[in-house]
């Protein structure tokens, strides 16, 4: 009961204030849970009573039994594995590649000026339009899906990291230069660590984007994976499979987001 001991030192008003915050937090959480229960419950109830057609809408219980079937046939983790693999590879390559390109563009002002219009266009282009080209160039397989994922994440990574690098305080750069630092030292000692917070935000964005990229890629070419299950389920009108796969996707994206959240806490600790 460490917390209680602490509170004793505070004045009555402050205790009240703290309590209010706690109550507030608690009621929000309760409301969130209740909302979920209500939606799931209503969904189940209405489909059960045949007010809504479970054939078009599926239902929570049918989703669960679909998942159990997938699990029993041993294919659930196979599909999850494939999608997860594609997403993580795409995420990692795009993040590293985008950051490297940003470093090169930070380094060379000339190159930055030359490439600027191309990057702007690449950023505005809906990457899905490149699908057929990707398939022809890298083949209709896992590599096409990963390429799609990379394409979607890499431009935004480059742009965000570049602007973070360029935002670096001029005085701090002058300080290092007055100590005789070369450009590489300025990059390593100042510009990169200074952009760390932005890097974590980019990771956060990329978690979402890499799932978009992979699923889009799987829509285009796949023979397995969650995106494949969703497309397949849609084609054979098996809404249970579509909904169940989407649910798994939600859970996976959440877990990945949580990991980045932990990383963020570590990085934010010493920012002003």
């Amino acid at each position, binding site marked *: 009961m460490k917390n209680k001991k602490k509170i004793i030192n505070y004045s009555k008003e402050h205790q009240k204030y703290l309590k209010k915050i706690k109550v507030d937090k608690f009621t929000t959480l309760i409301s969130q849970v209740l909302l979920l229960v209500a939606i799931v419950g209503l969904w189940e109830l209405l489909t059960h009573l045949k007010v809504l057609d479970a054939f078009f809408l599926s239902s929570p219980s049918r989703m669960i039994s679909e998942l159990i079937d997938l699990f029993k046939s041993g294919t659930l983790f196979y599909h999850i594995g494939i999608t997860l693999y594609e997403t993580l590879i795409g995420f990692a390559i795009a993040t590293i590649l985008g950051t490297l390109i940003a470093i090169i563009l930070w380094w060379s002002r000339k190159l930055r000026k030359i490439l600027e219009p191309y990057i702007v266009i690449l950023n505005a282009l809906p990457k899905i339009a490149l699908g057929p080209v990707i398939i022809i160039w890298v083949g209709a397989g896992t590599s096409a899906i990963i390429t799609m994922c990379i394409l979607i994440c890499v431009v935004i990574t480059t742009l965000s990291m570049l602007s973070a690098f360029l935002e670096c305080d001029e005085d701090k750069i*002058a300080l290092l230069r007055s100590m005789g630092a070369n450009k590489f030292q300025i990059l390593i000692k100042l510009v990169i660590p200074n952009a760390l917070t932005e890097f974590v935000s980019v990771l956060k964005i990329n978690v979402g984007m890499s799932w978009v990229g992979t699923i889009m890629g799987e829509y285009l070419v796949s023979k397995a994976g969650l995106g494949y299950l969703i497309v397949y389920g849609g084609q054979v009108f098996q809404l249970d499979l579509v909904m169940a796969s989407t649910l798994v996707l939600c859970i996976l994206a959440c877990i990945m987001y949580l990991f980045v959240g932990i990383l963020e806490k570590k990085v934010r600790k*010493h920012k002003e």
Partner: protein
Amino acid sequence: MENYLQLKDISLSYHTKEGEVLALCGINFNVEKNEFVSIVGPSGCGKTTILSLIAGLLKSTKGEVLLDGEKISKDTNIGYMFQRDNLFPWRTIYKNVCIGLEIKHKKKDQQSLQHVEDLLKKYGLYEFRNSYPSQLSGGMRQRAALIRTLCLKPKILLLDEPFSALDYQTKLSVCDDVHSIITKEKQTAILVTHDISEAISVSDRVIVLSKRPAKVKSIQTIDLKNIESPLKRRESPKFSKYFDLIYRELGSEK
């Protein structure tokens, strides 16, 4: 030693898309070893430009800067302090202070590390060496910034309005603090400021600049050396005499 730092007929223009800006025009002055010189002038007149030149960060269009008989280059060992402390928030105080040693690949040099430790102990930052900048007061941070430059044993210390970001009370005490450290470490220093009182209270000489393009208008020798602390110097009757003099020099600009 006479003429430790020499600025000889320095002119400098900035080139921008909008045109050419003549910032400095025929600047001449010398600084002796261990001297504390201030430069005052209206804002935008070219004070920071002069310091950047001495630090080797800029090249003059005309004229030359000599330090200890040698032409200034990028490799000349110079200490620079800015308006803000510019400590890196992700580094501890100790690691911040050592950044210069890292840059100069002296991180393993026992003598330099000992010097850092001595300075930290002497000026009361040793117990905060593992704290982060955000955990220290503005005054302490500026002191850490000063030690960061001093541990490289610079030939000359350049201070660009180092107190202007602090509130008035803090400013007076930090100014006292920095002045006493610089004097104790026998540093040659040039302070740039637009605060006349500050300039008089710390320096041996005050150089008054005209507005842009900057020329040296006058150089005022300040005879307050017998009083040690800048705070006390402010109370001397001579102080207000100097203030009037320099104020009028600057005022006749407008």
